[in-house]
């Protein structure tokens, strides 16, 4: 008898450790009606204005830029209502009247000058992005920006998140960044480390007031957990959702709305053109471009979330010159290119002077799609008869090898279309003097075209110049374009008015409401 009681008591003790009692019904916090809760893959940090981090200030619209991009990637007024090129190196910007910062201070030309100068002092990259020589105030609402070289792309570069306009109170007495104070429809409210960043509606906003009172950016690093939070109703919107869930949530009757739009971004492989490397010969570079089936990468490595890339810029942006040459999957052309370059196929492997065509591909694993794409490229080239291997690093780890030229090829992600001007990425990546790809690629004719292009206003001459430049890049094949980015997000059906912005760095929650 005692044994039985003992048995029962121990069983009860063990069971008590399991969650049999029901927790309070309101354990899951449901967002209020005028609050939008967003689950993000990265933590939205309010106290860092480092280039990659401060994009959040633009995405969430705490800050405004002088110039903005609409959904067609056209330039539209931001804090500047008009801009005019006075001379090849001089621009005048007329500022919007009646704009106040979140701290109550008025926006004027002095304030904008202060902000831009502060940003370029703290982030030297911003100075070269704008090619900045001098900023001067000519009237309370007029700003003069002088560039070092003739620079037609300035208004486009001023849409870049890092040029957002900060109030003086965003910095301390020593000029160090403290917190984001801007002019946007939302003001920074609070931050809980590793959990959430909250912004609130700013009632003094110069444009149409948002209908949401508050936006909460919750940090949910696990991709599946981000989608599950959406399904339990804890969050209203989840961004960067895994391809498999895109398919599931897209099904009719799922109760969720999935958004998939092309946005700025290209995954591509850089080929080292230095002498002694396998890709020193342009024919070998063209051959790999003809060997890689981009469609297979998108379908099998990325579950269809992406667009095969056969050119540097994604089609569909009207500032990209039309009718540019494009690569195509063409095994016969690859074979004739490699044969012309002195390679011979022996037993299924490409050989030259008794040595196989061996390529080591580097990439970095911090961006989720990178290992998938890199492995796919390696596999496709192997199937075509190359001897490939891959090595994964962190971004700076890979960069340290790339800068020293110790590589054959590497796979990266950049956002060439982000400011709707070809200059943003063509000049730093393909000009001999900048060479941000570190692949030893040089073409004097291309250099001239790129310098000329950034000085030209929009029009047929600019189109022709960039068409010629992009054709040279295509023929010289210093890179292998792989995949154009598709941005994926999902909301519950109460969320109305959300659109994915093609720049990839803008949420535009001021037109979002919840029913």
């Amino acid at each position: 008898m005692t044994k039985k009681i003992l048995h029962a008591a121990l069983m009860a003790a063990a069971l008590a450790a399991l969650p049999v009692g029901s927790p309070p019904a309101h354990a899951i916090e449901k967002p209020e009606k005028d609050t939008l809760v967003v689950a993000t893959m990265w933590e939205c940090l309010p106290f860092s204005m480092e280039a990659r981090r401060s994009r959040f200030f633009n995405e969430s619209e705490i800050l405004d830029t002088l110039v903005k991009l609409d959904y067609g990637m056209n330039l539209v007024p931001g804090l500047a209502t008009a801009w005019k090129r006075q001379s090849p190196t001089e621009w005048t910007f007329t500022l919007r009247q009646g704009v106040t910062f979140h701290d109550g201070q008025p926006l004027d030309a002095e304030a904008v000058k202060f902000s831009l100068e502060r940003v370029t002092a703290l982030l030297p990259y911003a100075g070269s992005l704008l090619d900045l020589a001098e900023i001067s105030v000519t009237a309370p609402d007029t700003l003069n920006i002088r560039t070092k070289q003739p620079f037609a792309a300035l208004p486009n570069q001023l849409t870049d998140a890092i040029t957002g306009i900060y109030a003086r109170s965003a910095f301390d007495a020593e000029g160090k960044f403290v917190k984001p104070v801007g002019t946007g429809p939302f003001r920074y409210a609070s931050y809980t480390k590793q959990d959430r960043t909250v912004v609130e509606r700013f009632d003094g906003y110069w444009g149409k007031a948002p209908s949401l009172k508050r936006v909460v950016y919750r940090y949910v690093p696990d991709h599946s957990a981000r989608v599950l939070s959406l399904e339990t109703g804890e969050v209203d919107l989840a961004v960067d959702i895994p391809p498999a869930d895109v398919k599931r949530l897209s099904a009719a009757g799922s109760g969720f709305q999935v958004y998939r739009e092309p946005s700025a971004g290209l995954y591509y492989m850089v080929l080292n053109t230095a002498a002694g490397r396998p890709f020193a010969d342009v024919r070998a570079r063209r051959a790999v471009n003809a060997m890689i089936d981009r469609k297979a990468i998108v379908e099998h490595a990325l579950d269809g979330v992406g667009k095969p890339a056969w050119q540097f810029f994604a089609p569909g942006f009207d500032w990209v010159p039309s009718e540019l040459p494009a690569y195509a999957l063409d095994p016969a052309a690859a074979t004739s290119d490699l044969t012309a370059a002195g390679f011979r196929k022996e037993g299924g492997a490409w050989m030259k002077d008794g040595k196989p065509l061996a390529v080591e591909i580097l990439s970095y694993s911090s961006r989720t799609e990178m290992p998938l794409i890199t492995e796919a490229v390696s596999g496709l080239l192997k199937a075509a008869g190359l001897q490939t291997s891959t090595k994964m690093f962190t971004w700076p780890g890979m960069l340290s090898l790339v800068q020293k030229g110790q590589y054959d090829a590497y796979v990266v992600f950049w956002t060439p279309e982000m400011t709707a001007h070809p200059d943003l990425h063509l000049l730093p990546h393909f000009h001999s003097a900048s060479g941000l790809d570190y692949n030893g690629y040089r073409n004097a004719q291309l250099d001239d075209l790129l310098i000329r292009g950034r000085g030209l206003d929009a029009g047929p001459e600019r189109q022709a110049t960039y068409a010629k430049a992009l054709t040279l890049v295509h023929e010289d094949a210093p890179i292998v374009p792989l995949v154009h980015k598709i941005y994926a997000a999902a909301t519950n059906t109460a969320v109305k008015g959300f659109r994915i912005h093609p720049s990839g760095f803008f949420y535009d929650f001021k037109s979002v409401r919840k029913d």
Partner: protein
Amino acid sequence: MLRRLGQSLALLILLSMFSFALVHAMPGDFAELLLIERMGGDLPARDVLARFKAEEGFNDPIVHQYLRWLGSILRGEPGVSFQSGDSVWAEIGLRVENTLLLAAASIAVSLALAVPIGVFAAARRGSVWDRLSMLLAVLGMAIPNFWYSLIMVMVFSLFLGWLPVSGYGHWTHIVLPALVIGTSMAGITARFIRSCVLDVLSRDFVRTAHSKGLGEIRVLLGHALPNALVPIVTLLGLQIGKMFDGVVVVETIFAWPGIGRLLVESIFSRDFPVLQLCVLVIGAVYIAVNLTVDLLVMAIDPRIRGAL
């Protein structure tokens, strides 16, 4: 006792040297990476980098650099995180606090299951309890935590709607991660308790206790368990250690800001100031836990006191 404390201190100093050297031995120029971060991702020119190295003391002998780093930690100002721009202590303090919370909750869950099951499995070899402990141990080892975590989220958050998926700061947030870790540890712990108790049960003093006419429960809980405690406490020490670096997957899924995840993140993002201190703190925790275990064991078993 004093010798044991001295050993711990020496170990701590060795550890600090190791965590400092580790970062400097990693590929990539530490000074260059630091400058890239300060310049907002820009690549510094050669002359700028050389000047920076000279000004910031990167050309000094490595021993000077180490002492300077140690000094900055002792003064409580080991720099700011590259990633968040916040002080390294603030980053790590939050993580240590939450890891301790999760460790306490998980081990409580684990013990609540393992002690009754383990003790009874020992007393009734081959019984339902014995088989249950075996089942738990096998499941705990065989089921990967990322899968188990997502299943728990689906059951308790999606279907039942009782608990939030992820986050921290409210007591409901700790329940799921603690259940996942606690139950997956419980099986091993139960098997361990079982074998420890089993070992003690065959001793003479247990037979004596039985022959004195004591009830089974008093023999088990009053005589057998306390004598089996020494190895169990040691195992608990190991499990606490594991909570500091071995539950990254669970921390990530539940967005629980534990120190294991901070360690992994700081490696991936090359956040050296955080990484260095993370290694130091995790190592220090191991040392502290081991010391505590030794002291506890001494308190439990008078025979060991002389041995240390």
